[in-house]
Structure formats: C-alpha cells, structure tokens
C-alpha cells in the first residue's frame, strides 16, 4: 500500500465505524474491498494488518453493540474473510479470538443485524474467502458455521440461499481431497469433520420427502461435479449414487429437472444415464403419444410414458406445458453435442417430436385424439415453444434422419418461413434452422453443391425469401438478408444454387435494400451485396424502373453509402466488404487497387464513427501486407495475395503506400481520440517498422528539413490540432518519422485504461472521505 493511502486509511476506518456517518454509496465499499483483494493477492495480509492497525480496530469495533449499517457490517465480514484467507494472518486474527466473535454466535449472527439479507450474504462471502486452508476448516467445524450454512440454504433471499449452496460446495472441495491430494478413503469415518457433516446433510436431504430439500441437495451435487473432476468426487459419487438412483425410481420423479442436471454433470454409469434421459424425454414422449405418433423405431421413447403418465398430467396448463417443453428442449440441445450423450441417441423420435411441436404451435398439426387437441389448444401460436423447438431442430441437423422425416423437417421449416403469423424472432430462428439443415443435407461425393432434394426445396424457398425481403417489418428484412449472405457464402460457387438464385428476384431486391430506410437493413444489404458480388451473383438491374440501364456500379454505390449514409452500421458494413474485396482481389478492386484504397481511406479518415476508422486501418493493413508481400502469420483470414512480392528496394515497395496516403491516414489515427483506433494504428506502424528494420536497406534521412516539418505537424496533431495535412510523403521521410516516434511508449500509454487516474485507490479513499465531509479542502472539487 502506498504511503498516501496508508495516511488516509485511519480516517476512513473511523468514518466506517461511525454509525452517524452513513455511507450513501455502497459501490464505494465494493471498490474498497476489490482494492484490499488486490493488495492481499499481491502481498502479505499480515504485514498489511500490522502496518495499518486501524483495520483490526475497525473489525473489533463491529463487535460492539451499536447501530451500524448493515452494509458496513457486511463489508467488515467480507474484509475479515479476505484478510484471513492467508493462514498466518488467520492465526494473527485468531489470537484475539476476533474471527469466532465475528462469525460465531457472538457476532452479527446472534443479533438484530442478522435479519438483513445483506449481512447474511456478507457472512457467507466472508467465510467463502476465509475457507482456503486447513486451519480454516477446523475453525468452521468448531464454531458451528456449517449448521448455519445448512439453514441458510432455505433462506428467504434467493441470493443468500444460492450463496450458501455454493459455500457448501467450496467447503466440500476444500476438505475432501485426501492427504497430499490423493484419493480420500472410502470410509466416511476417515473424512474431515466438515466433509462428514456436509455429506451427511446431503444424504439426509436426498432421503427427504419435500422436493425443495431434494432440489437443494441435487443443486449442491451438480455444482460439485460440474466444477471438479478430482478423484474424490468419484468416491463421493460411489457413496451417493444409490440414493440418487432411488429418486429415479419414484413415481413421479421428484425435482426431475435438477436430477437431470445432476446426471448430465455426472454422466457416469450408463444405466443411470439412460434413466435420467428417460425423465428428460417424458414431455416429448407425451407430445408424440398425444398426437398418436409412432415413438420411433429406436424404441427409446417407448415405455417412457406409462399408463399413469398422460399429457394431461405432465402438461396440464398452458404455463406448465410451455415451461416444461422449453426446458426440455433447452436441455436436449445442450446435451446433443456432448460426448457423454446417451447412446443410442433417439434422433428420429426427437426429430419427430420437434416437427410435431412446431406443427402444433403453427396450427398445421391434425391431432385426432382429445389429448392431442388439448395440446394443440395450449400450444397454438406459442412463440416461446416455437423458438425453443426451432433452435432444437437446428441442433438436430448435426445428425441424420430417415428421408421422410427430413422431408417433414423441410416442410415445417417452409411452413414457418411462409406463415404470415410467424413473429420476427421466430422467423429468424426458422432461417437459422433452415440454413443448418441445408448445410447437413447429404452431399453427392465429389460435388459440393446442394443435393437434388435441397435444390427442390430452394426452389420453394426463394419466393418466400423474396417476399420476406419486402416485409414491412425491418427485423424480417434483416434476417432474410443475413440468411441470404450465409447461403451465398456457402453455395455461391455451386452451379445449382447459382442457377436458382439468378433465376429469382432475390439479387435485385437485395440491391434495392441498399436504400432501405432502416440502417440495420442497409448494413445487412451491404454485406449481402458484397457477398453476392464476390461470387459474381450481382445482376445489373435493367427493369422498367431503370430505363436506359444507367446503373451505378456496386463499388460506386457502396462508396456513396460510405460517404453519405447518416448511420454507422451501413458504413461499417461497407468497410468490411471493401476489406474482404481487397483480400480476395475482387475484380472491381483489382482493376485499380491503389485508386480504390486511396479513395476508401480518404473517406474513412473523415468518418465520425470510430469503428469505421478502425476498419480503415484493417483495410490499410491488408493493402500493406499485399504490397510488402508478406501476410501476417497471426491473421487467419489473410490469404496469399495475388500480387507478386516486391523485388525492388524498400523505398520502391513503400511508394504505393505513400501514393494512397496510407501513412497520413495511419498517423492521423495514431492520435485518434478513440483509443481502439489509436491502438490499432500503433500496432500497424509497429508492424511496418519491424518489417522495414529487418530489410534495413534504406538510407535514413533523419536530418532532412522535411522530416522535421512532419514531426512538428505530428506534434500539433497529438495536441489536438489536426487541421494541417501532411502533404506528399516520401518513403525515406516516413521511415525516419517512424523511427523517431516513441511507438512503444504510446502503445503502453494506450494500454492503460483512460480512467486509470480516477480509478486509483487513493482517489477512491479521497472520494469516500470527501462525501462525508472529512476532507474539507476537497469540498469544492466534489461537484
């Protein structure tokens, strides 16, 4: 701790200990605690306490009966925990019996302050910090804290209850590992007292009849197994699994979803996993049963729904039905990509269930049973289930399915894309799922084009996309464009796709959306057009509304957007398209690359949006790499440029960069008021300097008057006056200026956050004291 802070600390502690001086802003206390954590992580807590006795005084002060605010009390408990996390400091505090007093019955635990959830939460967090070493474990066992934690699991405050569960997990993790980190004994009698107590409590809860208690125990176990895979967890599982298995045999299974969560996190014995999976599949099996569908050949969904289990029971009301189905679908979606997912995976019945759910929600299902009609009534038009089912359906595309089911998948997707009642979010998800299914459609060997079924589907899909691109709802137009971009990126080079797309009105409509009133849509249209153009899929519009066919080139159109669009998103999109075009040596760019780069950089440098300027630097970097002939190794997107590597001397190589005024752009960006731009420019110039240093063939002209004038101009720029242009720069001058600039220093300064001065601990302490008026002299500064 620096001396200035040490000086301010006693006064602050006095303020904190004074109930008449309430701390109005508890974010200060959080910041203060963060600061103490930083100090204790970096050095000895014991030295901190010894150097600042006021801290111990503050903690002692908490034990006196008084009217302290619950925030300060909670803060002190947490501070004590942070300090006692180091064993020597723990011992030091123990000497004065301070810790048992703070965390035991004598402290807030036994007093009126305990009614405040803030204090209870502070108590838990204090212990959470403190529990880091064996001494702490003894302390916890001795002072009876574990029992209190058990009771806090049922706390009325959800935050407290959840923190109590987390603390139990933490203590268990601390106490279970055997001596020297080896596996603990299977005999519970050999375990530390704390561990015995906690495991005993969990066992008791698992045997309980009340669902909340079972849920708590399951949640503790799920967190334990989810976060730790040490050998001791295996020992623990061996001991507890019979109890867990017992839960699965009950009918109905209590706390079913917590149980599934646990089993997913444990994912151990095969038999148990199958049972857990069955629980998870129940709602979907109900749906299939209610709509009288064959649960599928794999038989996994067979027998899940017994006679006692009907859709009415499991899915009684709309709220329950929707909630359960959404959770089930979300679980299954998470489970699908995991290696420990159940085997065999019932892909076909799940596909069938997802399709059926979507049909029920969309009103196209034709259930014949009463249960089915009931479900239909509950789910009709339910956006939540539609979204969850579409997400799940998309995930299922990673597997295969019987042909007729896949046909149904595409049919239901088309139904959703077509339906006027699909909400914009549902539509977006339908587009995403469609894309994933198209991706997964079977490939003809040696051909990357879409298979004939997918091409047939595409023929139905494109008219729908056309209509969606004309939707009055901008979100819909936007998702339509994103979908088009994705498709073009993947199949833009394939004959079947190209033929279908060019036969449709989609490219023309996309071009028209460049002038959409909504900026997000314009941005997406820019990206889509960039992609279409890269693949040669842009058709010059020559419709009746463009008599004479005087059509601006797309490049000119995009440049127009870059220089005139009032919103940032379309301009950013244009810069991204341009950067990509430059990378790919797009035909429109390759014709006169220098003119293109010069034009773009000139417009970008004047843009008010920092992301556009930053993207300008990205484009400059691509050009630089192409000019110097060596792509950066760390950039995965960079491809070897078509331009041949320069063979001439460095000065000649730098000439094109000077001609496009790349340096003026980069230097200007170096002093940009937006830090990311300056950082990016700094990186670019450092990269260039490293490049030129290695070749080292250029004569320096450090002393030339031109260099001096450029340096002077740059100083003025740095001071904020960027009016004066640099004029034409020669490569030699550039190199000289580059070497004279303290780029490393600048990089370091930029790396510090802009508010590093205001964020200093000293400033924090001063602010806190100033608010309560202790620092009289600072009053005027405050506001």
């Amino acid at each position, binding site marked *: 701790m620096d001396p200035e802070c040490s000086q301010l600390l006693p006064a602050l502690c006095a303020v904190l200990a004074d109930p008449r001086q309430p701390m109005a802003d508890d974010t200060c206390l959080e910041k203060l605690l963060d600061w103490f954590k930083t100090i204790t992580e970096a050095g000895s807590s014991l030295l901190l306490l010894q150097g600042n006795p006021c801290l111990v005084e503050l903690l002692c002060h908490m034990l006196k009966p008084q009217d302290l605010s619950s925030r300060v009390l909670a803060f002190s408990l947490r501070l004590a925990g942070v300090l006692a996390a180091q064993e020597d400091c723990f011992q030091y505090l123990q000497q004065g019996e301070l810790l048992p007093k703070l965390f035991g019955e004598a402290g807030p635990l036994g007093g009126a302050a305990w009614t405040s959830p803030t204090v209870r939460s502070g108590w838990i967090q204090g212990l959470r910090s403190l529990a880091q070493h064996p001494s702490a474990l003894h302390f916890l066992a001795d002072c009876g804290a574990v029992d209190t934690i058990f009771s806090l699991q049922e706390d009325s405050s959800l935050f407290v209850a959840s923190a109590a569960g987390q603390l139990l997990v933490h203590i268990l993790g601390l106490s279970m590992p055997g001596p020297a980190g080896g596996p603990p004994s299977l005999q519970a009698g050999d375990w530390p007292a704390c561990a015995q107590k906690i495991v005993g409590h969990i066992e008791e809860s698992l045997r309980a009849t009340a669902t909340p208690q079972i849920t708590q125990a399951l949640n503790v176990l799920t967190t334990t197994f989810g976060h730790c895979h040490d050998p001791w967890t295996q020992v623990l599982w061996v001991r507890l699994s019979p109890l867990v298995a017992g839960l699965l045999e009950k009918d109905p299974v209590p706390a079913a979803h917590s149980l599934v969560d646990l089993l997913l996190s444990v994912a151990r014995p095969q038999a148990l996993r199958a049972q857990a999976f069955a629980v998870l599949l129940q709602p979907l099996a109900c749906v299939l049963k209610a709509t009288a569908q064959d649960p599928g050949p794999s038989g996994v969904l067979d027998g899940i729904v017994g006679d006692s289990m009907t859709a009415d029971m499991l899915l009684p009301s709309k709220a329950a039905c929707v909630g359960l189905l959404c959770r089930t679908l979300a679980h299954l979606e998470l489970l699908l990509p995991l290696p420990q997912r159940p085997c065999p995976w019932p892909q076909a019945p799940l596909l069938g269930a997802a399709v059926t759910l979507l049909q029920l929600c969309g009103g196209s299902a034709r259930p014949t049973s009463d249960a089915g009609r009931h479900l239909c009534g509950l789910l009709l038009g339910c956006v939540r289930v539609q979204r969850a089912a579409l997400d799940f359906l998309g995930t299922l595309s990673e597997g295969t399915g019987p042909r007729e089911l896949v046909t149904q998948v595409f049919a239901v997707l088309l139904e959703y894309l077509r339906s006027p009642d699909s909400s914009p979010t549902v539509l977006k998800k339908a587009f995403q799922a469609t894309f994933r299914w198209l991706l997964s459609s079977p490939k003809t060997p040696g051909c990357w084009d879409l298979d004939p079924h997918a091409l047939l589907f595409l023929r139905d899909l494109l008219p729908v996309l056309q209509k969606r691109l004309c939707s009055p709802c901008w979100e819909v137009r936007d998702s339509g464009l994103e979908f088009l971009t994705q498709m073009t990126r993947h199949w833009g080079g394939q004959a079947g796709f190209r033929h279908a797309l060019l036969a449709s009105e989609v490219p023309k*409509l996309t071009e028209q959306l460049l002038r959409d*009133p909504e900026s997000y849509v314009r941005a997406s249209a820019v990206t889509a057009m960039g992609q279409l153009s890269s693949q040669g899929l842009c058709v010059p519009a020559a419709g009746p509304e463009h008599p004479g066919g005087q059509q601006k080139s797309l490049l000119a159109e995009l440049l127009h957007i870059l220089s005139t669009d009032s919103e940032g998103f379309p301009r950013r999109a244009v810069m991204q398209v341009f950067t990509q075009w430059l990378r790919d040596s797009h035909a429109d760019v390759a014709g006169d690359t220098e003119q293109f780069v010069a034009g773009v950089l000139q417009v970008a440098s004047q843009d008010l949006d920092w992301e556009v300027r930053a993207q300008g630097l990205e484009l400059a970097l691509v050009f630089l790499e192409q000019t110097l002939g060596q792509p950066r190794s760390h950039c995965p997107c960079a491809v070897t440029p078509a331009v041949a590597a320069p063979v001439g001397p460095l000065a000649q190589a730098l000439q094109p960069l000077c001609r496009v005024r790349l340096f003026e752009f980069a230097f200007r960006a170096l002093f940009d008021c937006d830090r990311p731009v300056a950082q990016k420019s700094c990186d670019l110039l450092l990269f260039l300097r490293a490049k030129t240093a290695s070749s080292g063939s250029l004569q320096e002209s450090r002393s030339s008057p031109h260099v001096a004038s450029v340096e002077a101009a740059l100083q003025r720029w740095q001071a904020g006056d960027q009016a004066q242009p640099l004029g034409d720069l020669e490569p030699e001058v550039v190199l000289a200026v580059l070497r004279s600039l303290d780029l490393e220093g600048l990089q370091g300064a930029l790396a510090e956050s802009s508010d590093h001065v205001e964020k200093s601990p000293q400033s924090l302490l001063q602010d806190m004291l100033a608010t309560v008026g202790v620092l009289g002299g600072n009053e005027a500064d405050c506001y």
Partner: protein
Amino acid sequence: MSSPEYCLSGHPTLPCNVLKFKSTTIMLDCGLDMTSTLNFLPLPLVQSPRLSNLPGWSLKDGNAFLDKELKECSGHVFVDSVPEFCLPETELIDLSTVDVILISNYHCMMALPYITEHTGFSGTVYATEPTVQIGRLLMEELVNFIERVPKAQSASLWKNKDIQRLLPSPLKDAVEVSTWRRCYTMQEVNSALSKIQLVGYSQKIELFGAVQVTPLSSGYALGSSNWIIQSHYEKVSYVSGSSLLTTHPQPMDQASLKNSDVLILTGLTQIPTANPDGMVGEFCSNLALTVRNGGNVLVPCYPSGVIYDLLECLYQYIDSAGLSNIPFYFISPVANSSLEFSQIFAEWLCHNKQTKVYLPEPPFPHAELIQTNKLKHYPSLHGDFSSDFRQPCVVFTGHPSLRFGDVVHFMELWGKSSLNTVIFTEPDFSYLEALAPYQPLAMKCIYCPIDTRLNFIQVSKLLKEVQPLHVVCPEQYTQPPPAQSHRMDLMIDCQPPAMSYRRAEVLALPFKRRYEKIEIMPELADALVPMEIKPGISLATVSAVLHTKDNKHVLQPPPRPAQPTGGKKRKRASEDIPDCKVLKPLLSGSIPVEQFVQTLEKHGFSDIKVEDTAKGHIVLLQEAETLIQIEEDSTHIICDNDEMLRVRLRDLVLKFLQKF
C-alpha cells in the same frame, strides 16, 4: 309467453333475424348474401371478346337447350345473365308485421330495400349516421356497377328444379334459386333509406312502451353497433360484427353488455385462423414485391372499411419500401364520397383519430396521400383515369366478387401477365370461386383476408367478462370449421352450451319471465296503510283496478261504489261494518312446530304426534282424532264435525301468526 327468434339468413356474417320480444317484432339486421353472384358470368365494362365467345353449355346427351343461359369456362359453368342475389327468407314470418329493424353495420343492411319495399313493411329502421351514409354508398356502388352494363338477358330456365338437378356443381347445389332476385334500383334504395331513423351510441329508444333498444359501439366499422334490447326485467344483447382490435372506429363498448339474459352472437371473423396483423404484413410484402418487379397490383375491395386501414398502412410503408413513385388508384363511383365521409365522422372514430381533428388535421392519412398525388381516385376507369393511368401501379376497386365493377376490366387487362398480382383482402368471397371465370390466369393471386371481427379467443374472453345467462349463435359457431375439425379452439365454448340456429329455423329464447313492472297511481298510493311485518319490510293490502295500455300497467283506485240512494238516515258505522266483515285480515308468519305442540299441551291436548312431510308437518291429535296440517302457505285443521274443537285449534294457530 315465449320469445321466438326467426332466423332468415344462413350466413353468419350477413345475419337477418327476427325477434319477437314483449309483443314487439324486431328484425336484427338484413344482410344480403351476395355469394350467389359467383355463379354468374362477370359483367365486363368494356366488351370482352373472351367472355362473349365462351361456349354454351350442353347436357351430357348433347342437348343444348341451355346454351344461351349457361356458358362454360375452364371446366366451370356460369349463368350468363344479370347477377342475382340470395334474399333473406320471406316465407318464415310475415314481414309486414315487423315493427322495427335494427341495423348493426353498413355491411348488414344491403337487403334493406328488398324488405322495406316489397313485403308490406311499415315500421321504422334504426341505424347510426355513418352506417346509413356508408351503407348508401355501398348500395349506390352496387346499383351503379350493375345498371351501367345493361344486360338484356335474364336467365330463368336453369332455375327449374328438374333442370337444376342436371347441372354441374356448384349450380346444382345452389339453394332456393327461385327466390334469387336482381339488384334493386336507386329509387328503391332511396325509399328504403328514407325509412331509417338516425340514432347515436347509448341513445335509448322506446318501442311501444314495452321495450327499450340502445345501440353500442362495436368497434368494427364507422358507426357499427351492437344493440341492447331490454324490458324492465329482461335484457337481450345483440352482438353483430364487433372488433377488439385498434383500427379506425371507436372501441367496442363491452361493459354495457353485462347482465344479459340472452346474448345473440353473430358476425365473428370469417377467417379465424388469419391474424389481421400478419395479413396486413403479407399484403404489404406482396404488393412491394410485385411493384418492384415492374408488375401491377389489383386489390378488389369495397369502397369503405378495411380500405381505410390498408391505405393507412401503405402510407407508412410506401416510403420505406421505396414505392413513393408508384401511383395508387382508387376507382369507385363513390370513391370520392367514401374518402371524404371517413374524414367527417370524427365522433365515431377511435380516440387517436378524434384528437387529430382538434389539431386540426384530417384523421386519416389518406388525405395526405391524395394531396401529394400518391393516391388518386376516380369514379370509373372511363374519363380522367384513362389519361392519368401509369404502370406499374396499384389499383383498389370493386367489386370483391369479381363479377361486376371496374375490377372486371382490370382482371381481363392484367390477368395474362405473371408480373401482375391480384391481392384479395375482403373475406366475403372464396377467392378461388371469384377467379373461376378468369381461368386460365397467368397473374399471381394472393389471398390475405383481413377480417378484424372477433375471433374465438376474443369471444371466449368477452363471454367471461360479460357473463350472459345464455348464448345464442348461428350453428356454424358451435363446431369447428369442417376443414379443421381438430381445431376445438375454433368454436364457441361456453356454459351452458350456446343455443344454435340455422336458416329458416325458429328458436324459443330461454327467458324465465317472472315479473312485470306495474305503476301505482299517487292517490292510490296515498291511501295505503303499510304495516311493518319485519324490520324494514312493510305490507299493505291494495284494492285497485289494473289498467293495461301500450304495454304499460297501472294500478288505479277502484271506482267508488255507486252511492246507495236514500241512505242518509243510516248510521255511518253500519255502513262500514259489512265492509269490515267482508275483509278478513291477512295472515303472515310461520308456525314453529315445537312451540305449537307445547301450546297444545298447555291447553290440555295430549298424545300429540308430529310427522314431517315433504311440505311441512302434520300434527296428529290421536285422542281427538284430529289432524293439523301445517305447510308453508296453508294450514288445514281436519276434524270430524267438531266445530268447537276446530275453532279452538284455529285460535291457537292464529296466535302464532301476524294479522293485518
């Protein structure tokens, strides 16, 4: 006395019912089913070689005697004649006995001239002002569409029942073709409309003293109403064509529908599966898609109603869709009046639009579309329109049946190109049937029916809110639509189940009529001497004459008995005595059996047995061989010729009762 309801129309959204209620005969709406016109060939405004060269239809055996009347087009057979309409039933009830007709909205009055001019009707019609004005426009347009294309031929041979049986569907299945009638004339329209009396929302109209009727805002169209029909003790709500969506009209008044004995529910949405918002989006998307590709859009529509909302949506959409340069044409003989009328009925509009009037701004943005020349309107495609006409464009014109009106011309003009699109927004006609005489058709057809009337979810909420004792509705609403039999949500679900009716059926409305209100004359009331029998409850005997006239009942003092002549000498007291003797006191109260038995014992009766009966008790005096039968409203003492004993017992009974 029962309250029958006569159903004269089988069309649930174009109802025509007659309600006999409290000796008044009330017709509820008189909708005209125009789907019959779909069986006829279109009336082209300009000579159409295609239509006039259609081959005549002949029977399977080659007999061609019908070939002048029936023409064949793409496998369908059409009647080549002036289109005819299917009228409401006129035989079920003598329509000259109808006292009043209540109109709920302008779509539900199109049969009015047939009723008022040809049935001997002599009553009054009640409707709101916008209903009458816009209804007049719809009728005027209809008459104009049909009269401006005179057609000499009137087909009647095919209507012969023996011949009709031989025709292909749907002609074969058309109902009551013999009653189909040609369109009325403008003269009949004017005469019919002159019988209408204008009413305002919540205005109470007395009918013959017995019944009060009140129109309430129904939220569906300008001036559209639901009606409350009530007497002092019964209330019938007639809900027809209501909407809970926020469109241009005043919102629906639901609160006033509460406490109804019977709620007659008609005019629900015809397309319960189509959400109007989604459909408007669909309409806009398809319109823009067509126009951007250089095609024209044809929107067959009525000259009022949804068109206002569509124009408002387009007003917001055209700039964003880059359609600012595309002309929008509205062609109807009444286009101008319709656009202007909509702006002047401020008090009938939704709150948002009402407030605009005070700014002052026109409530509908189509005024701005007209000002900026984006929307142009013409009475007909002849005249100015032909010189202004520019393509690609969007044309709104009638009639939605595609059988008459300017739309026929545009169908012929644009039908051959796949660039063009016809977008159906009116839900009244099957678009496939409407298109049948234009096949084969290259033009794209989009069906976006926009029906803002109540759907079944809204009905269910409404019924929960309003809680009528009984719901009465067309039979179509009591089961899911035939094509979607699994959709149990597409029917009215209420308890007790709704009573349903169908065309030409008479239904007895389930009233439990118990009370009638009777007024008492002040002088008679003055003479009453109430006696308190329970705290807060007093009774008095009344002798009066009940006078009933115009369904009002009044108690008047009885006529004074004629003064006996020459009675001056008789004492006053003796005058009163006979009266008093005649008037036995009235008894009230109940006899507590246990106390009564104790009293009997006190008075020396023994061997008393009490039996419970269904209506009360029997006290048995076994020794005296006497029965005392005590019931809620009577007590009988049955004993054998022992008058003394009877009187003794009577007096004991009377001790427990109050007299007045």
